[in-house]
């Protein structure tokens, strides 16, 4: 059968530096094709060229057998190629139908928008895809998963044959991801081709039929998912033989560090009790909206005291503000790196020092030499790839950004790390380093509580798991009894 998309020898350089030197890709109808590669492998460059956002230096792109010369995203859209970007950009105050038909609203007399027809068309489209979303609801009332489904509907309304999904699950919980996967399967049945970009290997093995791997701007391999093992795929992506994926070096003690008793958070997270021990990695597991992040926010003084007791190293504490929590040795790597982890306008040095300004100053005046050496220390400790500490962090890759956040918190010399989705949007290589940092920290006498939606990660790293459902603890599982089944059973 003729491929939907056939790319050969795609080349692109920026200022003399090759970002892509041999982009190769073949997408067949009715398949999900995973595009794999670490940060800087050339995936984004490849996609932006295919979408007509950037021009190519050389190479050929054939869509449905015809040579394509897209110069604008609208050319690609017209030829049946559409992309669902990682960061969705809906118009929040408009309805689903208005978003789907944005810029090409059906009009009636005197150019008046024909809302009745628009709503009917949109609803028909959504229904045909089995998406249970009302065309009249406002975008701001939808969940992230629903927003993605709307994007898919929008892509199909352009008669797209090729749909590119860039990290579509990075903001989804497991249940919502399943909803998305069901939609992807239906698209496959209709003969569409899907290019699926994700750092999450378990997803690739669940949903994809074929894979193509890029590394350092070059094509390194392709094949059927059925013919490749997880380890072989990782090796292809990373480019060197595998070490243990989840490096665990810590052994939990029975010495309590943090005791939480009958803690409430917000209005709906109730009666949370657990004990965290020195040297332990404790995971909070649960679906999105089960109250995981709310517990962290309460512990870090970001939300008000709603009752319950917190005991740190044997002493009752109130933890009424982040400053208070930091002073008690807590550190909080938030789920949303760009939203609440980094100051994207500032450089590495300022970001790394941000939670440690009191220590780095005297009588209100900053000690610049100490700021510089602190930043340097963290850059070295975490192997952050940067020419210098004056680079604005928005220019770093996801993995390096996450290391800056970790550096910021390690600088405060914490005793307890709260990690909320610490490896989201981070490539395989950087993930491993983050796992190593976690377990080293615990091995040296620290204690970690982590939240993760990736079951593999929880199974690989946690010494003990507390499962949450609807704002309450629904069970606790020790490392010996850990399995994906037991977790899902307790969470759903």
């Amino acid at each position, binding site marked *: 059968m003729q491929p939907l998309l056939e790319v050969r020898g795609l080349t692109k350089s920026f200022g003399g530096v090759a970002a892509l030197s041999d982009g190769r890709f073949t997408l067949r109808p009715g398949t999900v094709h995973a595009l794999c590669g670490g940060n800087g492998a050339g995936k984004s460059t490849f996609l932006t060229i295919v979408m007509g956002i950037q021009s190519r230096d050389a190479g050929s792109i054939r869509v449905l057998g015809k040579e394509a010369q897209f110069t604008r995203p609208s050319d690609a859209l017209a030829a049946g190629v559409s992309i669902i970007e990682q960061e969705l950009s809906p118009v929040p105050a408009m309805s689903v139908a208005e978003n789907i038909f944005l810029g090409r609203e059906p009009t009636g007399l005197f150019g008046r928008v024909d809302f009745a027809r628009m709503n009917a068309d949109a609803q028909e489209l959504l229904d045909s895809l089995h998406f249970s979303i009302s065309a009249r609801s406002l975008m701001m009332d939808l969940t992230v998963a629903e927003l993605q489904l709307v994007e898919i509907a929008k892509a199909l309304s352009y008669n797209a044959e090729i749909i590119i999904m860039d990290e579509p699950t990075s903001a989804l919980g497991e249940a919502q991801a399943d909803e998305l996967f069901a939609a992807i399967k239906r698209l496959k049945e209709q003969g569409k081709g899907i290019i699926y970009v994700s750092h999450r290997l378990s997803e690739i093995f669940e949903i994809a039929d074929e894979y193509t791997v890029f590394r350092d701007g070059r094509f390194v391999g392709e094949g059927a998912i059925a013919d490749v093992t997880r380890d072989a795929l990782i090796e292809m992506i990373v480019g060197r033989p595998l070490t243990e994926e989840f490096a665990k070096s810590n052994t939990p003690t029975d010495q309590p560090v943090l005791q939480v008793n009958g803690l409430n958070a917000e209005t709906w997270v109730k009666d949370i009790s657990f004990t965290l021990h020195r040297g332990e990695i404790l995971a909070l597991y649960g679906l999105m909206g089960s109250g995981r992040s709310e517990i962290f926010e309460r512990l870090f003084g970001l939300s008000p005291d709603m009752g319950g007791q917190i005991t740190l190293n044997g002493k009752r504490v109130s933890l009424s503000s982040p400053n208070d929590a930091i002073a008690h040795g807590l550190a909080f790597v938030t789920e949303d790196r760009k939203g609440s982890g980094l100051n994207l306008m500032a450089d590495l040095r300022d970001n790394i020092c941000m939670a440690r*300004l009191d220590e780095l100053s005297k009588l209100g005046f900053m000690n610049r030499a100490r700021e510089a050496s602190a930043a340097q220390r963290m850059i070295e400790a975490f192997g952050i790839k940067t020419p210098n500490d004056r680079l604005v962090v928005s220019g770093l890759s996801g993995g390096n950004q996450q290391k800056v956040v970790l550096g910021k918190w390690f600088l405060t010399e914490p005793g307890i790390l709260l990690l909320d989705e610490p490896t989201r949007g981070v490539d395989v290589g950087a993930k491993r380093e983050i796992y190593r940092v976690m377990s080293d920290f615990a091995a040296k006498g620290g204690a970690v509580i982590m939240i993760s939606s990736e079951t593999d990660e929880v199974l690989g790293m946690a010494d003990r798991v507390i499962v949450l459902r609807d704002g309450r603890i629904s069970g606790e599982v020790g490392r010996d009894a850990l399995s994906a089944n037991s977790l899902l059973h307790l969470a759903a």
Partner: protein
Amino acid sequence: MNTNADTQDFKARAADYGQRYGILIALVLVCAALALANEFFLTQRNIINVLRQASINGILAIGMTFVILTRGIDLSVGSVVALAGVVSASLATTSATAGVAGAPYAFYIALSLGILVGMVAGWVNGVLVAYFNVPSFVTTLGMLSAARGLTLLYTGGRPVPSLTDEYRYIGTGDLFGIPMPIVLFAAVFVVALVVLTSTRFGRHVYAAGGNPHAARVSGINVKRVRMAVYIISGALAGLAGMILAARTGSALPQAGIAYELDAIAAVVIGGTSLSGGVGRVTGTLIGALLISVVNNGLDLMGVESYYQQVIKGMLIVAAVMLDQARHKHA
């Protein structure tokens, strides 16, 4: 090829310098052009004149820089200029001083009171913005009207005349031959520069403006920082109000109208981002000087003042357009 790499490197460095010093280069070019066009421009008297004209706007713009760095805006500074001016001047008139027992101190009391009035107005702005989440545009628009109204109520719409010589010194006197407004402007600039670049509070301002959520999670009291920047802006507006009154010889209730616009213009021309977190007080200084130089140059060339406003408008927009283009390339 090596030469190619060198060119690349040179280009990158040139772009970096352009980013850093673009506005300064513009200022130097304008000055050079004016110096060639008019022999009077580079005389000592004219330079002092330019600096003195820049000083009141410059002081306001420095306060505005703090506010804009935290993603806010302070539209009330012009009205606070008038309010602080009339309140402090009313204590410093010859008739008032005659009636006060501690007459020798009256001058200092009057000065402190002017700054205090500015701080109170700023505190009200800050509390509303930081603790009641009223957008700064709305809060300070309200204060723009309210402070002007209070000024008119306090004075009955009449000027506060006959200021004492002591008081007039801050507007018309000099220190080692340098007029006091320039001395005060320079002092405010140096203090602001040190605060923003070298103190913990300065780091807090940039962090709170760059990403308030991340700043909060990092233990920075973002609400307190927000409140503080409005108090700073108010205090500097108070100072500017007194200098203006002292220069004029009497405090006018209609003083300072639309001053907020020139202050915002200086900040924006100076490269501070209206979306917060990025900017320098040095840029603001250059922005204020550039506005003053352009006004002065147009005066010297005999351009009608109506045209001057049009040109200033174009200058503001052009500066921001350049800035946008630069960011696109970066």
